[in-house]
């Protein structure tokens, strides 16, 4: 099956700093999502971004599908940004095990005041 690798595994920032999280995937995808899992365990949709660039406030994401990677940018980080950031992809093609999101192991972000 498709492999999803996220880097870095852990990241510690001071409030106000910027950061870039990376997601590499091993096969063609038709779906890519970024999620934030907050300290209470909730999975919050950040971006649905199979290709291109999107921005939402201080967060933005870029997916270069032809080169099989996606980047999540966090600017002017706040303590509330702490948590685990997951990338999840769905393989191109139809049928069988392609009907699913495959998750990376996540990046644990800690933002200190």
């Amino acid at each position, binding site marked *: 099956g498709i492999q999803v690798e996220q880097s870095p595994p852990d990241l510690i920032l001071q409030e106000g700093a910027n950061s870039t999280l990376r997601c590499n995937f091993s096969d063609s995808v038709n779906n890519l999502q970024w999620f934030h899992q907050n300290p209470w365990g*909730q999975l919050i949709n950040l971006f649905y971004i199979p290709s291109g660039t999107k921005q939402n406030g201080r967060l933005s994401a870029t997916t270069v599908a032809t080169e099989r990677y996606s980047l999540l940018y966090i600017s002017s980080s706040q303590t509330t940004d702490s948590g685990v950031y997951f990338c999840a992809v769905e393989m191109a093609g139809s049928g069988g095990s392609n009907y699913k999101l495959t998750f990376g192991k996540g990046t644990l972000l800690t933002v200190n005041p």
Partner: protein
Amino acid sequence: NAGVTQTPKFRILKIGQSMTLQCTQDMNHNYMYWYRQDPGMGLKLIYYSVGAGITDKGEVPNGYNVSRSTTEDFPLRLELAAPSQTSVYFCASSWGMNTEAFFGQGTRLTVV
């Protein structure tokens, strides 16, 4: 819209007991999924459904069963609970393949 709703939020089971995790969505989504998340890991697919009456196995189906009698509901049944099933369970739904998926708040299950 409430989105995807899971009950219960927390549960402790004894080894060998059974239970059903409930999941309902009000977005008229065709596809529904059950994932489990073990500590420090991403989510792994247990079962999925592409519509009422249609279900199929994911990566880690052993010890679980599902049914999909309506578009809205997708319960997950644990028979003969084992300590290895201690995990956080997430239900999700999407309109179709390659569309945005939305997750419930999770059920934290401990088997002792």
